[in-house]
Protein backbone atom coordinates (compact mmCIF):
# COMPACT_ATOMS: atom_id res chain seq x y z
CA UNK A 1 0.00 0.00 0.00
CA UNK A 2 1.53 3.32 -1.04
CA UNK A 3 2.00 6.01 1.56
CA UNK A 4 1.47 3.78 4.54
CA UNK A 5 2.35 4.61 8.10
CA UNK A 6 4.08 1.58 9.64
CA UNK A 7 4.42 1.11 13.39
CA UNK A 8 8.01 0.12 14.21
CA UNK A 9 8.31 0.42 17.98
CA UNK A 10 6.12 1.48 20.87
CA UNK A 11 6.51 1.86 24.61
CA UNK A 12 3.83 2.41 27.22
CA UNK A 13 5.05 3.92 30.48
CA UNK A 14 2.85 3.52 33.53
CA UNK A 15 5.39 4.00 36.32
CA UNK A 16 8.62 5.97 36.69
CA UNK A 17 11.45 5.25 34.27
CA UNK A 18 14.56 7.38 33.69
CA UNK A 19 14.23 7.29 29.89
CA UNK A 20 12.39 5.74 26.97
CA UNK A 21 14.08 4.56 23.79
CA UNK A 22 12.36 3.84 20.49
CA UNK A 23 14.50 1.73 18.20
CA UNK A 24 14.30 0.24 14.73
CA UNK A 25 15.34 3.16 12.57
CA UNK A 26 17.23 1.77 9.60
CA UNK A 27 17.50 2.22 5.85
CA UNK A 28 13.99 0.90 5.17
CA UNK A 29 12.45 4.38 5.35
CA UNK A 30 13.73 7.87 4.65
CA UNK A 31 11.36 9.58 7.05
CA UNK A 32 10.20 8.47 10.50
CA UNK A 33 7.46 9.88 12.68
CA UNK A 34 7.34 9.82 16.48
CA UNK A 35 4.12 10.47 18.37
CA UNK A 36 4.13 10.89 22.14
CA UNK A 37 0.90 11.38 24.05
CA UNK A 38 0.15 12.06 27.69
CA UNK A 39 3.77 12.26 28.84
CA UNK A 40 3.82 12.95 32.58
CA UNK A 41 6.79 13.22 34.92
CA UNK A 42 7.50 12.81 38.63
CA UNK A 43 9.50 16.01 39.22
CA UNK A 44 7.97 19.47 38.95
CA UNK A 45 9.15 22.11 36.45
CA UNK A 46 11.36 19.96 34.27
CA UNK A 47 11.98 19.87 30.52
CA UNK A 48 11.48 16.93 28.18
CA UNK A 49 14.67 16.14 26.29
CA UNK A 50 15.63 13.72 23.55
CA UNK A 51 18.74 12.34 21.91
CA UNK A 52 19.36 10.17 18.91
CA UNK A 53 20.71 6.68 19.49
CA UNK A 54 23.54 4.96 17.68
CA UNK A 55 23.93 1.24 18.16
CA UNK A 56 21.17 1.54 20.74
CA UNK A 57 23.09 4.05 22.87
CA UNK A 58 22.00 7.67 23.28
CA UNK A 59 24.51 10.11 21.82
CA UNK A 60 25.26 12.93 24.30
CA UNK A 61 27.82 14.86 22.28
CA UNK A 62 27.38 18.60 21.69
CA UNK A 63 25.86 18.15 18.23
CA UNK A 64 22.27 19.20 18.85
CA UNK A 65 20.98 22.51 17.43
CA UNK A 66 17.36 23.63 17.75
CA UNK A 67 15.11 26.57 16.94
CA UNK A 68 11.42 26.96 17.61
CA UNK A 69 8.67 29.41 18.39
CA UNK A 70 7.32 28.99 21.90
CA UNK A 71 3.53 29.43 21.75
CA UNK A 72 1.85 30.44 25.01
CA UNK A 73 -1.81 30.85 25.91
CA UNK A 74 -1.41 33.51 28.59
CA UNK A 75 1.51 35.67 27.54
CA UNK A 76 3.58 36.72 24.54
CA UNK A 77 5.44 34.17 22.43
CA UNK A 78 9.19 33.85 22.33
CA UNK A 79 11.95 32.38 20.19
CA UNK A 80 13.75 29.38 21.59
CA UNK A 81 17.07 28.44 20.07
CA UNK A 82 20.38 26.90 20.99
CA UNK A 83 23.36 25.36 19.25
CA UNK A 84 25.88 22.73 20.25
CA UNK A 85 23.79 21.30 23.05
CA UNK A 86 23.82 17.74 24.30
CA UNK A 87 20.16 17.08 23.51
CA UNK A 88 17.05 18.52 21.87
CA UNK A 89 14.39 20.21 23.97
CA UNK A 90 10.92 18.72 23.44
CA UNK A 91 8.95 20.24 26.31
CA UNK A 92 9.30 23.11 28.74
CA UNK A 93 8.69 23.19 32.50
CA UNK A 94 6.37 20.20 32.69
CA UNK A 95 4.55 19.93 35.98
CA UNK A 96 3.26 17.11 38.12
CA UNK A 97 -0.24 18.32 38.94
CA UNK A 98 -3.36 16.73 37.50
CA UNK A 99 -3.74 17.37 33.78
CA UNK A 100 -0.17 18.57 33.25
CA UNK A 101 1.36 16.62 30.40
CA UNK A 102 3.16 16.93 27.08
CA UNK A 103 2.03 15.70 23.67
CA UNK A 104 3.93 15.99 20.42
CA UNK A 105 4.61 14.85 16.88
CA UNK A 106 8.17 14.69 15.63
CA UNK A 107 9.36 13.89 12.11
CA UNK A 108 12.91 12.59 11.67
CA UNK A 109 14.80 12.82 8.38
CA UNK A 110 18.01 11.17 7.06
CA UNK A 111 18.50 9.37 10.36
CA UNK A 112 20.10 6.23 9.01
CA UNK A 113 21.98 7.98 6.22
CA UNK A 114 25.62 8.21 7.31
CA UNK A 115 26.26 10.83 4.63
CA UNK A 116 23.79 13.38 5.95
CA UNK A 117 22.97 15.16 9.17
CA UNK A 118 19.80 14.00 10.97
CA UNK A 119 17.01 16.58 10.97
CA UNK A 120 13.77 16.73 12.90
CA UNK A 121 10.66 18.88 13.00
CA UNK A 122 8.40 19.10 16.03
CA UNK A 123 5.01 20.33 17.11
CA UNK A 124 4.37 20.21 20.82
CA UNK A 125 1.33 20.95 22.99
CA UNK A 126 1.63 20.76 26.76
CA UNK A 127 0.13 22.01 29.97
CA UNK A 128 3.10 23.17 32.01
CA UNK A 129 3.59 23.59 35.75
CA UNK A 130 1.92 27.05 35.89
CA UNK A 131 -0.44 25.53 34.56
CA UNK A 132 -0.41 27.19 31.14
CA UNK A 133 -0.98 25.83 27.63
CA UNK A 134 2.45 26.02 25.97
CA UNK A 135 3.69 24.59 22.70
CA UNK A 136 6.58 24.54 20.31
CA UNK A 137 6.65 24.73 16.53
CA UNK A 138 10.13 24.24 15.20
CA UNK A 139 12.88 21.76 14.59
CA UNK A 140 16.43 20.70 15.11
CA UNK A 141 19.49 19.16 13.54
CA UNK A 142 21.98 16.61 14.81
CA UNK A 143 25.21 17.80 13.25
CA UNK A 144 26.90 14.48 12.82
CA UNK A 145 26.96 12.20 9.80
CA UNK A 146 26.46 9.11 11.90
CA UNK A 147 24.10 6.18 11.48
CA UNK A 148 21.19 6.91 13.79
CA UNK A 149 19.03 3.92 14.76
CA UNK A 150 16.58 5.34 17.27
CA UNK A 151 15.61 8.09 19.66
CA UNK A 152 15.74 8.41 23.43
CA UNK A 153 13.49 10.58 25.62
CA UNK A 154 14.22 11.67 29.18
CA UNK A 155 13.50 14.42 31.68
CA UNK A 156 16.01 17.09 32.66
CA UNK A 157 15.71 15.67 36.15
CA UNK A 158 13.61 12.86 37.55
CA UNK A 159 11.59 10.19 35.80
CA UNK A 160 8.99 9.85 33.10
CA UNK A 161 5.91 8.63 34.95
CA UNK A 162 3.55 7.85 32.09
CA UNK A 163 3.07 8.18 28.36
CA UNK A 164 2.55 6.45 25.04
CA UNK A 165 5.61 6.53 22.80
CA UNK A 166 5.38 5.34 19.20
CA UNK A 167 7.80 5.26 16.27
CA UNK A 168 6.50 4.93 12.71
CA UNK A 169 8.13 4.65 9.32
CA UNK A 170 6.64 6.44 6.32
CA UNK A 171 6.47 3.71 3.70
CA UNK A 172 7.38 4.81 0.20
Amino acid at each position, binding site marked *: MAGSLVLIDSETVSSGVPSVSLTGVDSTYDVYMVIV*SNLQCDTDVEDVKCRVTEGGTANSTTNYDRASKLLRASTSFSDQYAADETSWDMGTNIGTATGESSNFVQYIFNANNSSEYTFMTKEV*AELNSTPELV*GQQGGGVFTSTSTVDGINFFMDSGNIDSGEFKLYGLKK
Partner: protein
Amino acid sequence: MSTNLQFIKSESADNVSSFTITDIFSDSYDVYQVYVTGNGSSSVSSLAAEFLDSGGSDIAQGNYDTAIRRLDPSSTFSSPNTESANSFEYVYPSSTDNDFASLITVYNPYETEYTFATIQSMSNQGSKAIAIAKSTTSATGMKFYANQNYTPIVVSVFGVK
Protein backbone atom coordinates in the same frame (compact mmCIF):
# COMPACT_ATOMS: atom_id res chain seq x y z
CA MET B 1 1.81 -4.69 5.36
CA SER B 2 -1.15 -2.82 6.81
CA THR B 3 -0.96 0.88 7.50
CA ASN B 4 -1.06 2.28 11.00
CA LEU B 5 -2.82 5.43 9.83
CA GLN B 6 -6.33 4.05 9.81
CA PHE B 7 -9.27 5.74 8.14
CA ILE B 8 -12.24 6.25 10.46
CA LYS B 9 -14.72 8.51 8.72
CA SER B 10 -15.15 11.28 6.15
CA GLU B 11 -18.20 13.50 5.93
CA SER B 12 -19.09 16.74 4.20
CA ALA B 13 -21.80 19.38 4.01
CA ASP B 14 -22.60 22.51 2.03
CA ASN B 15 -24.29 25.77 3.00
CA VAL B 16 -24.26 25.06 6.72
CA SER B 17 -23.33 27.44 9.51
CA SER B 18 -21.98 24.60 11.63
CA PHE B 19 -21.02 21.02 11.02
CA THR B 20 -20.93 18.11 13.45
CA ILE B 21 -19.14 14.82 12.94
CA THR B 22 -19.84 12.07 15.47
CA ASP B 23 -18.37 8.74 16.52
CA ILE B 24 -14.82 9.53 15.46
CA PHE B 25 -12.98 9.11 18.78
CA SER B 26 -12.96 5.88 20.77
CA ASP B 27 -10.72 3.74 22.94
CA SER B 28 -9.12 2.30 19.80
CA TYR B 29 -6.56 5.11 19.44
CA ASP B 30 -4.72 7.68 21.58
CA VAL B 31 -3.95 10.08 18.73
CA TYR B 32 -6.03 11.17 15.72
CA GLN B 33 -5.45 13.22 12.60
CA VAL B 34 -8.43 15.35 11.53
CA TYR B 35 -8.19 16.86 8.04
CA VAL B 36 -10.57 19.74 7.34
CA THR B 37 -10.96 21.49 3.99
CA GLY B 38 -13.56 23.84 2.59
CA ASN B 39 -14.60 27.42 2.24
CA GLY B 40 -15.81 29.58 5.06
CA SER B 41 -17.98 31.73 2.78
CA SER B 42 -18.24 35.49 3.08
CA SER B 43 -16.95 37.80 5.80
CA VAL B 44 -15.12 35.08 7.61
CA SER B 45 -12.34 35.85 10.05
CA SER B 46 -11.49 32.84 12.17
CA LEU B 47 -13.13 29.43 12.10
CA ALA B 48 -13.52 27.53 15.34
CA ALA B 49 -14.18 24.02 16.59
CA GLU B 50 -15.03 22.21 19.77
CA PHE B 51 -15.06 18.65 21.08
CA LEU B 52 -18.35 16.86 21.78
CA ASP B 53 -19.30 14.05 24.13
CA SER B 54 -21.48 11.13 23.08
CA GLY B 55 -24.59 13.16 23.86
CA GLY B 56 -23.53 15.96 21.54
CA SER B 57 -22.55 18.40 24.29
CA ASP B 58 -19.38 20.46 24.29
CA ILE B 59 -16.96 18.81 26.73
CA ALA B 60 -15.16 22.02 27.72
CA GLN B 61 -17.48 25.00 27.41
CA GLY B 62 -15.52 28.00 28.70
CA ASN B 63 -12.39 25.90 29.13
CA TYR B 64 -10.54 26.03 25.80
CA ASP B 65 -7.10 27.67 25.72
CA THR B 66 -5.28 28.38 22.46
CA ALA B 67 -2.01 29.86 21.25
CA ILE B 68 -1.66 30.66 17.56
CA ARG B 69 1.15 31.85 15.33
CA ARG B 70 -0.48 33.38 12.24
CA LEU B 71 1.79 33.41 9.18
CA ASP B 72 0.68 36.22 6.91
CA PRO B 73 2.34 36.36 3.47
CA SER B 74 1.75 40.10 3.25
CA SER B 75 2.33 41.38 6.78
CA THR B 76 4.11 40.90 10.06
CA PHE B 77 3.16 37.66 11.77
CA SER B 78 0.81 37.85 14.75
CA SER B 79 0.45 35.71 17.85
CA PRO B 80 -3.05 35.74 19.31
CA ASN B 81 -3.86 33.64 22.33
CA THR B 82 -6.97 33.00 24.41
CA GLU B 83 -7.90 31.31 27.67
CA SER B 84 -11.20 30.06 29.01
CA ALA B 85 -12.92 30.31 25.63
CA ASN B 86 -15.90 28.38 24.32
CA SER B 87 -14.05 26.94 21.31
CA PHE B 88 -10.64 26.96 19.61
CA GLU B 89 -9.59 28.53 16.32
CA TYR B 90 -8.39 25.96 13.78
CA VAL B 91 -7.91 28.16 10.69
CA TYR B 92 -7.93 31.86 9.84
CA PRO B 93 -9.37 32.83 6.45
CA SER B 94 -9.09 36.52 7.19
CA SER B 95 -11.20 37.86 4.39
CA THR B 96 -14.01 36.99 2.02
CA ASP B 97 -14.40 33.70 0.22
CA ASN B 98 -11.11 32.03 0.99
CA ASP B 99 -10.69 28.29 0.74
CA PHE B 100 -8.85 26.66 3.60
CA ALA B 101 -7.17 23.43 4.68
CA SER B 102 -6.26 22.32 8.16
CA LEU B 103 -4.65 19.35 9.88
CA ILE B 104 -5.62 18.97 13.53
CA THR B 105 -3.70 16.34 15.48
CA VAL B 106 -5.77 15.41 18.52
CA TYR B 107 -4.27 13.76 21.62
CA ASN B 108 -6.17 11.81 24.29
CA PRO B 109 -9.74 12.81 23.30
CA TYR B 110 -11.38 9.67 24.60
CA GLU B 111 -9.25 9.17 27.69
CA THR B 112 -9.96 10.69 31.08
CA GLU B 113 -7.19 13.22 30.46
CA TYR B 114 -7.26 16.74 29.06
CA THR B 115 -7.57 16.80 25.26
CA PHE B 116 -4.71 18.52 23.41
CA ALA B 117 -4.38 19.52 19.77
CA THR B 118 -1.60 20.71 17.51
CA ILE B 119 -2.81 22.47 14.37
CA GLN B 120 -1.32 23.37 11.00
CA SER B 121 -3.54 25.25 8.60
CA MET B 122 -3.50 27.38 5.49
CA SER B 123 -5.92 29.81 3.90
CA ASN B 124 -4.91 33.25 2.71
CA GLN B 125 -2.88 33.09 5.92
CA GLY B 126 -1.18 30.11 7.45
CA SER B 127 -1.11 29.21 11.11
CA LYS B 128 0.67 26.98 13.56
CA ALA B 129 -1.35 26.54 16.69
CA ILE B 130 -1.97 24.56 19.85
CA ALA B 131 -5.16 24.07 21.84
CA ILE B 132 -6.37 22.35 24.96
CA ALA B 133 -9.82 21.35 26.14
CA LYS B 134 -9.51 21.39 29.92
CA SER B 135 -11.94 18.59 30.52
CA THR B 136 -11.54 14.93 31.37
CA THR B 137 -14.86 14.04 29.74
CA SER B 138 -14.47 11.62 26.84
CA ALA B 139 -14.94 13.27 23.47
CA THR B 140 -16.42 11.24 20.64
CA GLY B 141 -17.07 13.95 18.05
CA MET B 142 -16.30 17.47 16.89
CA LYS B 143 -18.30 20.51 15.87
CA PHE B 144 -17.03 23.13 13.44
CA TYR B 145 -18.42 26.65 13.36
CA ALA B 146 -18.45 29.17 10.53
CA ASN B 147 -19.09 32.87 11.00
CA GLN B 148 -21.60 32.50 8.18
CA ASN B 149 -21.78 29.33 6.07
CA TYR B 150 -19.40 26.61 5.03
CA THR B 151 -19.53 26.24 1.26
CA PRO B 152 -18.53 23.43 1.67
CA ILE B 153 -16.76 21.70 4.56
CA VAL B 154 -15.12 18.27 4.32
CA VAL B 155 -13.82 16.49 7.43
CA SER B 156 -11.78 13.28 7.27
CA VAL B 157 -10.60 11.51 10.41
CA PHE B 158 -7.80 8.96 10.82
CA GLY B 159 -6.63 7.08 13.88
CA VAL B 160 -2.91 6.67 14.47
CA LYS B 161 -2.59 3.05 15.63
